[in-house]
């Protein structure tokens, strides 16, 4: 299998730091996309601003690298103007969960027919490692030098509560599972949300005692717990609102519904 079947090799090596989890998400996405047999000419990629949002520019397809936080709104217009185009959104925890939080929940509520991949590296990589809406409580960033006083969003639960049809979360320490849920999500309608936790060793890693890509990846593995395991342990998903009860982030398929999608609703 060739590595550059959907990416622009003329732009390689890419801009991401050594060990940046975004690259792993790229690999997984490519594999799922190819498995699914989708057509690059009939797929468009939309992203916001951030390291993770740069991903769109590396796909050898039509891609719209937009403004910070607004990717889903651009994607909504694109999808509605060309309803049979597959529209994939690449975004980051800052782009989607901080400045873009409203477009995120509204798109989920509308169950807009978009496929969304959020690379959640728990901080703002692009601007140098500031706190984001998913930075863990008490963790260090350049703007929380004494530890983050805030609590993180559980982006996937927010998506599910807002109404997204399909919601799954894994980390880059789970590449094969990522491939599987991306593939599964690509086959569905409505809003499909894949949250991929990823290492940003350059900042989040460096400030939180996991400076090397390997350490950061290990941290991801150790701090995640499968939703089925949680059930076994007798915890409900609600417990992880602030990652305090379980101390870990839930992974797995968190919602798989079949509500009328936006396109279905307007085409009734």
């Amino acid at each position, binding site marked *: 299998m060739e590595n550059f079947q959907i990416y622009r090799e003329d732009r390689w090596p890419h801009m991401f730091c050594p060990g940046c989890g975004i690259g792993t998400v790229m690999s997984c996405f490519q594999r799922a996309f190819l498995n699914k047999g989708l057509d690059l*000419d009939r797929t468009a990629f939309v992203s916001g601003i951030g390291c993770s949002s740069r991903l769109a520019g590396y796909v050898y397809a039509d891609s*719209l*690298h937009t403004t910070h936080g607004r990717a889903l709104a651009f994607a*909504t*217009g694109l999808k509605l*103007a060309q309803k049979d185009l597959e529209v994939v959104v690449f975004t980051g925890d800052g782009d989607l969960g901080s400045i873009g939080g409203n477009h995120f929940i509204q798109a989920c509520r509308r169950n807009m027919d978009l496929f969304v991949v959020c690379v959640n590296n728990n901080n703002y990589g692009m601007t140098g490692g500031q706190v984001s809406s998913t930075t863990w409580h008490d963790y260090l960033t350049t703007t929380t030098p004494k530890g983050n006083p805030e609590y993180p969003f559980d982006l996937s639960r927010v998506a599910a509560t807002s109404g997204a049809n399909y919601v799954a979360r894994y980390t880059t320490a789970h590449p094969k599972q990522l491939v599987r849920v991306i593939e599964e999500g690509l086959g569905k309608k409505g809003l499909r949300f894949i949250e991929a936790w990823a290492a940003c060793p350059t900042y989040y890693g460096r400030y939180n005692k996991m400076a090397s890509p390997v350490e950061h990846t290990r941290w991801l593995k150790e701090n995640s717990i499968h939703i089925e395991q949680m059930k076994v342990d007798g915890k409900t998903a609600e417990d992880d609102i602030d990652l305090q009860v379980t101390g870990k982030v839930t992974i797995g398929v968190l919602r798989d519904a079949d509500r009328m999608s936006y396109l279905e609703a307007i085409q009734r």
Partner: protein
Amino acid sequence: MPEEEVFLQGNEAVVEGALRAGCRFYAGYPICPSTGILETMVMRLPEVGGTVIQMEDEISSIAAVIGAAWGGAKAMTATSGPGFSLMQENLGYAVITETPCVIVDAQRSGPSTGQPTLPSHGDIMQARWGTHGSHSIIALAPSNVQECYDLTIEAFNLSEKYRTPVVLLSDGELAHMRERIVLKDLPIVNREEFPKGPVTFPLGEELGGVSPFPTFGRGHRTHVTGLTHTIVGYPSESIEVQTKLLTRLIGKISDNRKDICKYEVHNPKAEHLIVAYGIPARSAMELVTERADIGLFQPLTIWPFPSKAFRRAAEGKKSVLVVEMNEGHIFREVERHACRAGVEEIELCSKLGGGIPAPEEMLDCISAMEGE
């Protein structure tokens, strides 16, 4: 399409103009006094196979419009002051990505929430300068319901021709005013599609700085970005690339003033010249039809300001009076051009607060000027 005579509000005329121009996507968020455009679109656009969506705010409205444009649709949004402020970031994105689209700003009395139901022209300079960074923009200002229709079509045509966002500056008075108009069968400019296949040749080198449009989903595999980009669309951090890009983007508007700028001149030989656009131009017409010594220069294209035409019109005038429903926006343009044209008396007749300057008020301004 056959012509039709109708009795419409300004907001409705905008919708009819948009439909005739080929608009097939509309995204918006309610705000007085532009709401009527959204509410009319919701009824009218689906009838012609278009799609309307009420978004969660104005930021996402213009974003969706830009997205739709890349999906191949002629697309539009409408708003008023506060919403127009929120659209500024993405307006700049449309500029740098050369996305054809139309933004209507039905101006109300500001700043801030101000007086939502009263008209004013406080957003004229904002339309030109509201987004950050060096750039150009096209903006048009109708003064009656017919022009709401005509200039909406013109806005779409210019946006397609120059691959640029175009702003239509209506106001709270025009939005709700009803007049009888003709839905004229005007020429429509359609998007020129980028040649088949991937985007390989220089963007924007054709057609005097404007390249055909590589619609998404047709195999062009275009990368579109708000970052400074090279002629094939890839991000670049080179100063040279940025200089070239901005020079072209600004030049494609300012170098084509002659084609872009519409204006009207009445009583060209009069010794006093009034400059007015929008509703005040109507009040001025009241004077012009009665007094041979008063002329009117009415820019329909506000940005770029029709500077050459204006300088011609201003030459030899005893005085130039700018009448505006703001603190003097176009006045600044007029002052520099009129002064360069040799006019000595250049004054502003400003109406602050949501009222419309009456012909008598303009006369007072002229008298005041003469009395000086």
